[in-house]
């Protein structure tokens, strides 16, 4: 199939950047979206042009490295990662707009690559448990209700790709932050640091300059892992609870 892609090209962080169009004549519908860009990059390299910079790693939808805004939607029209999106989701003759995640907290490094270091700093502010080292305790000593285990696991599937920020009309990273709060907050190991975790992570989230959640749900709709919106309500509950107990 023949398609036209319009790609955001930006040489470096201080460059203004612009959309540049490229025609592709021989795209197979079986290609993944990133393979299509690989083919375009091979052509650009042969023609002596600078190839398009974009992030990817595992290409099987589990690492969270890839992520493009395709036709205005984070990870494109299907609920999956960009690497697991295939060209059969598009039609012959389509014009496809490809842009980087847009957030003032995710500065563009080059073309479609953004710096998501802000996520690492949010995790460092409390997204962990301080477990003593040594051998693992006997699992049956610590019963976890099935429902809690399921919810915690669901939240734990977050791959930190940043689609929630890209899709959020406010550029909020609440779904990412809330996934970790929910994951650890529902398990016994997460209890000792439950209050300090939510206080620290929300403080860091705000400090990074992310927007606030207006409960629209675009993050959940864009999330390739389907992290549910109720994680954010759990985060709110934990934060207000910690404040009420005078933990701040």
């Amino acid at each position, binding site marked *: 199939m023949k398609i036209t892609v*319009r790609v*955001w090209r930006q040489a470096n962080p201080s460059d*203004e*950047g612009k*959309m540049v169009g490229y025609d592709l004549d021989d795209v197979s519908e079986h290609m993944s979206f990133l393979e299509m860009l690989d083919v375009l990059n091979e052509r650009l390299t042969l023609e002596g042009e600078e190839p398009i910079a974009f992030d990817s790693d595992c290409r099987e939808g589990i690492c969270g490295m890839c992520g493009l*805004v395709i*036709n*205005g*939607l984070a990870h494109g029209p299907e609920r999956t990662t960009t690497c697991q999106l295939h060209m059969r989701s598009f039609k012959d003759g389509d014009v496809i*707009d490809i*842009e980087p995640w*847009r*957030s*003032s*907290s995710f500065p*563009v490094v080059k073309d479609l690559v953004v710096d998501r270091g802000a996520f690492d700093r949010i995790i460092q502010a409390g997204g962990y448990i301080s477990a003593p080292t040594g051998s693992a305790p006997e699992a049956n000593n610590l019963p976890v209700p099935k429902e809690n285990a399921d919810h915690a696991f669901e939240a734990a599937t977050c791959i930190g790709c940043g689609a929630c920020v890209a*899709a959020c*009309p*406010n*550029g*909020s990273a609440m779904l990412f932050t809330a996934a970790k709060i929910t994951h650890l907050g529902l398990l016994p190991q997460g209890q000792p640091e439950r209050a300090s975790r*939510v*206080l620290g992570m*929300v*403080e860091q*989230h*705000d*400090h*990074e*300059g*992310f*927007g*606030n*959640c*207006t*409960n*629209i*749900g*675009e993050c959940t*709709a*864009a999330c390739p892992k389907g992290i549910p*919106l*109720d994680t*954010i*309500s*759990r*985060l*709110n*509950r*934990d*934060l*207000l*609870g*910690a*404040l009420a107990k005078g933990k*701040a």
Partner: protein
Amino acid sequence: MTKRVGARRSTVALKALMAVSGLIMVGYLLLHMYGNLKVFSGQVAFDEYSHHLRTIGEPLLPESGLLWIIRVVLLAAIIAHVYSAVVLTVRDRKATRTGSGPRYKSKQNKRGFQRSYASFTLRWGGVIIFLFIIFHLLNLTTNDIAPGGASASPYERVLNTFGEWYMVLVYTIALLAVGFHLRHGVWAAGMTLGANTSVKARRNLNVLAYALSGIITIGFLIPPYAILFGWVG
């Protein structure tokens, strides 16, 4: 990066302030709507109800005491609501502004995956409602704006106002704005206060938001249309 502030002044805390102040106003709207429907009981009942609001709680409270308590609480709620809305909106604009022009250059999927009309219009709808409240106070409370004639009787003020079709139109537009605002606002308040923790809770919250939005919009619009069509008095 923005200035580091503690969790007490975080976006989540501001949202909670917005949620609580909003719910206070929703509670007031329900009482206000109940009072409005007294218009169907005739002039004596309506004017007496209005007078009763000023003498309620006497002699424990001075005249209009309760009314002033309500006014102070409502004013505080409005200030808190508008303050948090402005601070958070400015923050959100900063968070999404990267370079010149729109955030995403693509003209496709402007409404994202599932953004609703109610969520889209929340902020500007709020501004419309704010302006309407000022107009409404000048109209029916102070009676400085008195289409159809001024009167000392609250009942006559209402009848004179809604005898004019364009006033009914103004109130209809304002109440539709209130309806959309409540559809998303009530849901968001529940989310912010931590009520959405399961699929069932989410459904219940959405039902509550639709119900409150529908009841308040329709309940407030019944008297103006009844008056316009001549079914009152």
